[in-house]
């Protein structure tokens, strides 16, 4: 996102804002002015939803909680404390942020569908409590003595102005988030939460921050809604329709972009209101039916929303792919002197419900070594890997890294100790450039965004993808995707790099290229441990093999030695191999 120019977007936003306000002055009809006010208010709610769910991918069905909270905060402020909405709105924002924290903290422990269900419950609960507390229906009290102080304008165009200004502020906040590491971290979490953790991103903290900002904005939208419509009831602001509307507007317009909520609100709100106004007498629920049809259509036809669908169609016309660089001359690399023990594993074991996935593993990795961890299917390599990366905690034994015990640490903490890893299935942001994909790996290790981008550029160069740095990741071949994944791990400036089956499914020539890149890493100060099934390709790459079978260590030594060991051969080929071999 860094490389995209900001000015055209800002100019467009300013133009739209001015255009909207001008449009409102073209009419004196209270009905149309109200419509022109409601569209930006709902768009603002959509912006808040997008800020959280659109970027992070965690679908919230409960944003009505914040909207309603803001509406009631402003209302109760007006009716009981004579508080002007000029103060009430910021107060609503603060309450919304606090509610975001209070709701987010416990609920983030839940995954996927459970999270959605819990979020559904909150606004409904609040509706019941509000009803019970006696605030069934609240109306804005008239203040003829100081109308402007109480945000009661005779010229209703003023409301349009306020709504547009608030919307613009919300969009600018979104824009700032989207272009910063905040937004990138959220999007990385959406792609692959585990990978984000492994890159050092503290996912819980970012989710919480996003929820707080989202809650604040939604509450302000609710507060303004109360001021404009003059009457609130629990169902009108806490109801399922509100939460659904937040979601539908954004999903229709396009999640994960500032334009989504704007498109969604601009299309669906007028459509809904018009249908309601014209047909509401004979077809009282027509607006709801419209939203229902809209959301079904979106899910089936354009699941990512109108914005992305249109953009993809335009872009496919001209996807630029840079010409592949000429093949580099084969270079002989002097072996790097191997240093101290970097990783020491002692008696490591992991049991899943009584069954030992791995047990009694004892081996070490020296600094600047390239170690190959191999073994047949089901040997426990993945479990070992997960133990090293913090995905699972050891049942027995220890893992020491640079003298420090790391067994059981969370993945993002392990990442911050400069242990990096790659994932076998590469989940990239297809529409973003290679550089943007890589920078996610740099955030946890670089305090400023500028440093992060530099580190990303360096990593891209390390793997030889510089000509492709600005190409969209969706246009890359398999080999290039693997290299990009490697660059993402390198951007974190790792001391120890764990590669998870980097060669799986690659053709012979692609494998050679990848191996050449990995072979260079020790000379750049990185120790490498690779998990793979087959030995062929690895023979020329690794300094040492560790062979696992049935969860236990079978062999540990130089490739030539290990592969001649009978136990190793039999692990792959079956017992009595030697007999057959001799007989042949």
């Amino acid at each position, binding site marked *: 996102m860094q490389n995209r120019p900001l000015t055209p977007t800002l100019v467009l936003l300013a133009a739209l804002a001015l255009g909207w306000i001008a449009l409102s002055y073209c009419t004196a009809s209270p009905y149309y002015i109200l419509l022109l006010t409601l569209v930006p208010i709902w768009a603002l709610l959509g912006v808040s939803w997008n800020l959280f769910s659109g970027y992070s991918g965690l679908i919230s069905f409960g944003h009505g909680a914040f909207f309603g909270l803001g509406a009631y905060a402003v209302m109760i402020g007006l009716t009981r404390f004579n508080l002007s909405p000029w103060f009430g709105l910021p107060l609503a924002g603060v309450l919304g942020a606090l509610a975001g924290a209070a709701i987010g903290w416990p609920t983030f422990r839940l995954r*996927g*569908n459970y999270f959605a269900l819990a979020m559904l419950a909150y606004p*409904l*609960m609040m509706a019941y409590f509000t009803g019970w507390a006696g605030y069934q229906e609240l109306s804005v009290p008239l203040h003829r003595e100081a109308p402007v102080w109480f945000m009661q304008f005779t010229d209703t165009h003023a409301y349009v102005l306020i709504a547009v200004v608030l919307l613009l502020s919300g969009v600018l906040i979104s824009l700032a988030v989207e272009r910063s590491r905040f937004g990138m971290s959220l999007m990385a979490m959406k792609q692959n939460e585990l990978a984000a953790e492994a890159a050092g991103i503290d996912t819980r903290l970012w989710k919480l921050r996003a929820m707080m900002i989202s809650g604040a904005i939604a509450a302000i939208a609710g507060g303004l809604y109360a001021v404009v419509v003059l009457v609130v009831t629990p169902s009108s602001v806490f109801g399922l329709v509100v939460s659904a509307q937040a979601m539908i507007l954004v999903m229709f317009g396009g999640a994960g972009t500032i334009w989504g909520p704007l498109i969604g609100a601009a299309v669906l709100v007028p459509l809904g209101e018009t249908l309601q106004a014209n047909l509401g007498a004979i077809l009282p629920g027509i607006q709801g039916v419209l939203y229902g*049809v809209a959301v079904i259509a979106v899910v*089936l036809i354009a699941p990512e929303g109108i914005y992305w669908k249109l953009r993809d169609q335009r872009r496919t016309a001209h996807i630029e792919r840079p010409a592949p660089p000429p093949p580099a001359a084969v270079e002989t690399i002097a072996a790097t002197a191997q240093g101290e023990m970097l990783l020491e594993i002692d008696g490591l074991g992991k049991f899943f419900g009584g069954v030992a996935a791995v047990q009694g593993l004892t081996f070490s990795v020296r600094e600047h070594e390239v170690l190959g961890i191999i073994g047949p299917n089901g040997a426990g390599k993945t479990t070992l890997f997960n133990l090293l990366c913090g995905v699972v905690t050891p049942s027995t034994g220890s893992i020491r890294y640079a003298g420090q015990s790391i067994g059981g640490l969370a993945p993002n903490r392990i990442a911050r100790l400069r242990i990096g890893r790659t994932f076998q299935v590469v989940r990239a942001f297809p529409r973003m450039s290679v550089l943007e994909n890589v920078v996610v790996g740099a955030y946890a290790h670089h305090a400023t965004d500028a440093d992060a981008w530099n580190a990303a550029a360096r990593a891209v160069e390390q793997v030889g993808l510089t000509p492709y740095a600005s190409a969209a990741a969706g246009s890359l071949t398999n080999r290039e995707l693997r290299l990009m994944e490697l660059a993402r791990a390198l951007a974190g400036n790792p001391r120890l790099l764990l590669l998870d089956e980097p060669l799986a499914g690659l053709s012979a020539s692609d494998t050679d290229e990848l191996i050449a890149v990995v072979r260079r890493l020790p000379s750049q100060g990185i120790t490498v441990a690779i998990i793979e099934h087959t030995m062929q390709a690895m023979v020329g790459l690794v300094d040492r093999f560790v062979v696992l079978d049935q969860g236990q260590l079978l062999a540990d030594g130089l490739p030539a030695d290990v592969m001649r060991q009978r136990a190793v051969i039999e692990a792959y080929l079956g017992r009595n191999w030697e007999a057959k071999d001799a007989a042949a």
Partner: protein
Amino acid sequence: MNALIEQFVQVLAAGLTAGAIYGLTCVGLALIFGIMRVINFAQGDFIMVGMYLTVWIASRLGIFGDVAPFISALLVAPLMFTAGAALHRFLISRTTGLRAVGLSGDGHQAQLILTLGVALILQNGALIVMGSSPVSIVSHLSSSAWEIPLLIDEDSTLFLNQARTLAALVSVVVAMGLFRLIRSTELGKSLRAAADNPEAATYVGIDVSRAHRIAFGLGAAIAGVAGGLLVLTTPAQPFVGTDYIIIMYAGVVLGGIGSITGAFWGGMVIGLVQQISTLVLPLQLQNATVFLVFVLILLLRPQGLFGRSAERA
């Protein structure tokens, strides 16, 4: 003191009768979620449709008198089954199974949102077609009660509303019938097999998408019958379904995802909690209590009482 006991027993009875019907609704949801892993937002609205259908059918079965509402409720089942199966075939199946492989999150989000769309259309469609005034069945069963003397003293009696009690009994019978279907028939076993392992099920010749369709139809049918039983005591109106969504999910999660019998007991517990809470809390808050219980379960024990797997996404 005796008055307190009488009140407690009364509330307990209310909890059991409400709980039985809630249990039935939970069973319908558990069927769909357990077999297909689909969160169906429209399940509450299936109940609502069942309510209206029952009223309509009952008004045409006047000759059966007091039994009419119960017969109507049962007749709703095949209608709802067909509708549910059709809905699955033409809409829901596009976001599950093999077709979902390309969608993000394997289609789970997509089906969640799809069912939300269906819910909105059903609710507002009902508003258009039926209007917003509540509709109910006129039956003198709803206003009669059996009086059971409690043995504490001469005056204490337990009042059992006849309609509610009969509805609860029918719920139990229907639920038991469903358990039998799932446990013992070849169809039920093939549904469970498809849920356990869709790939292996395909290899033994089970048509997994047909299994899903049947499960969805059955879930809709159960919801319809439950609606029919509820309408004796709760009037039908377009948005009544939302009241039951949280109750159903709370019951299913409490009973444990993947356990259909557990879901029935979960619904029972929710009914009891809801009614017993009226002893200490004002009436308006009884639903809020359910929500609170729901959120607490999700946070403290997501695998429920009988569940197999925790934190399933």
